[in-house]
């Protein structure tokens, strides 16, 4: 069951990567990247349950935090085009 779940997650990751490559607009790519990060978290969770090492779940937490930070930075740059201090 875990193997099927991880295969499905990998297929979804491939689809998200394809969308990020093709994506004509910025928002396709942002959504694809966000989805890719989420799928990474899912893959780590599934793999850690499959191999019985559930202490890897901390890493999944860190990944979701990093995904959020990267996404906020990307979107801020997309809207304002700068990181100067008055835009914060």
């Amino acid at each position, binding site marked *: 069951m875990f193997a099927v779940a*991880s*295969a499905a997650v*990998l297929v979804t*990751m*491939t689809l998200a*990567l394809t969308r*990020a*490559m093709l*994506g004509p607009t*910025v928002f396709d*790519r*942002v959504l694809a*990247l966000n989805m*890719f*990060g989420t799928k*990474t978290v899912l*893959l*780590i969770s599934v*793999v850690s349950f*499959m*191999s019985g090492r559930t*202490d*890897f779940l901390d*890493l999944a937490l*860190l*990944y979701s*935090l*990093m*995904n959020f*930070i*990267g996404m906020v*930075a*990307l979107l801020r*740059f*997309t809207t304002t*085009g*700068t*990181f*100067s*201090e008055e835009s*914060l």
Partner: protein
Amino acid sequence: MNLIEFAILGLLATTAVTIARIRDLWAAIMFTGIYSFLSASWMLLLDAPDVSFTEAAVGAGISTVLMLSTLALTGKVEKAPTRFSPMPLLVVTVTGCALVYGTLDMPPMGAADDPIHLHPNPGFVERSQADMHGLPNVVTAVLASYRGYDTLGETTVVFTAGLAVLLILRRSTDGTAKPDGTAESNE
């Protein structure tokens, strides 16, 4: 498990080629984020959670923000190459072949008679349970406790470097742009 590793390596290769070929730098930064996530999960599959932790925090988190800050100061589109130059392709191919040739000498992963398992490791495995009050991970014990002073030194060096860069950048903006030295926040 092997199939997952092959799939992740395939996705890594695809992402790397995309990063090299894409001209929109904003999208390239986005693909480096994907690359970091992929390589971190691959390191996790190789049983290196500490390296994976660092890769996720530094590669996917901080370096994305840093590269976007760089992009805010420069242009968003890379200039297209005017002609095909075979020299970089040749250098990359030769280096890759040399690296693959080098891996042929490495012992198989997880073999019990690897040098790493014979020489320093047994002592760490035997002592870390008692020394570290039962930490489940020997690598964490070595990194965080046995090498504690080393890590403290590294952190001091990195902190000093970051402080120096901040001081230099802060003075140049104050001198040229606008006299606004009250803001304390930084990325």
